[in-house]
């Protein structure tokens, strides 16, 4: 509990509670374990995800903030950059340093000056604007590229269903 990681996570939790960014609610599932969080992200307006609320789980490593957490949506998420099992693929969640494949610059990747808030905001903009390079869900990426109306219809149907309508 008194580790650097736990202290930092507690501070971030406090900051996110006192001054939460628009459309984001996040905090530990249980304060006894600060290394497992649950976040809710609102679907960005003007996208087929608009109106939806998307729950995700964040797991922090013991050496946070040196290493980034992993993030996994716990709802149906039909998105090119979300693996079919819900795991989010975004550069800010990649370990610090240079990308061995030279796709991302070091500044886009995780570093201790990033934060949970920055991750969630980045994920929100990723939801709005998928990155078509190296998709995590190939089928969703193909539908997004080639059959946009169908992609949007499917996302809207998922959103509706997730709200129990």
């Amino acid at each position: 509990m008194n580790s650097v990681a736990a202290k930092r996570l507690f501070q971030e939790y406090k900051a996110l509670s006192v001054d939460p960014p628009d459309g984001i609610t996040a905090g530990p599932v249980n304060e006894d374990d600060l290394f497992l969080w649950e976040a809710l992200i609102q679907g960005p307006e003007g996208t087929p995800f608009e109106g939806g609320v998307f729950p995700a789980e964040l797991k922090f490593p013991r050496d946070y903030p040196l290493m980034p957490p992993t993030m996994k949506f716990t709802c149906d998420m039909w998105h090119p950059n979300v693996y079919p099992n819900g795991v989010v693929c975004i550069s800010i969640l990649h370990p610090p340093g240079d990308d061995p494949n030279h796709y991302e610059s070091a500044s886009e990747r995780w570093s201790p000056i990033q934060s949970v808030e920055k991750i969630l905001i980045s994920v929100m903009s990723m939801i709005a604007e998928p990155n078509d390079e190296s998709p995590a869900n190939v089928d969703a990426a193909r539908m997004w590229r080639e059959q946009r109306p169908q992609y949007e219809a499917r996302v809207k149907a998922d959103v509706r269903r997730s709200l129990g309508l």
Partner: protein
Amino acid sequence: MAQDGQTSINIPQLIAVAVVGFLAIRWFMSKPSTPGASSSRRNTIDVNKIEQVSSVFPQLDRRSIAWDLQRNGGNVEATMERVLGGRGLENPPPSFQPNLPTPATTQNAGGSTATGRKPNAPLPDLITRYNLQSRVSGKGKEPVPSEEQKRNAWSADKSARADALKKRREDMILAARRKMEEKERQA
């Protein structure tokens, strides 16, 4: 001479008989099958259309999709609109047994092993997951958090903090649902 004439007439005659006979047999054989084929075409909906709808709404039963497509004359848009409009698809009568393609199901099964999630097992919705059924029917609008509540967003007490976070989560979900319901009522 007479014999020569007979043979020279017989060869074209034989050919003519053979051709007429062939056409007659073909006509007889094809005649019963043609109406059968067209009626079965009427009963089978274009598999591609079923696939199209199914790729957008993987949780729907293919038989229901086929039934709806059959009833609206194979209009994919209309079927999708219907699902999106929240009306859902009717359950087809038991007698409706379209020939649904087996490759599609195996393809689907292959996809599920690759992705590790069952295609026809959607995750529970948020209302079920957060036990909000009792609060869904409440028509009243959630009060907008006042400045005082905002200032109390961080309590010194651990369980009060947990409750505040839980409340924010639930309010966010309920607000989203109400907004969506409102939007659908207006549409």
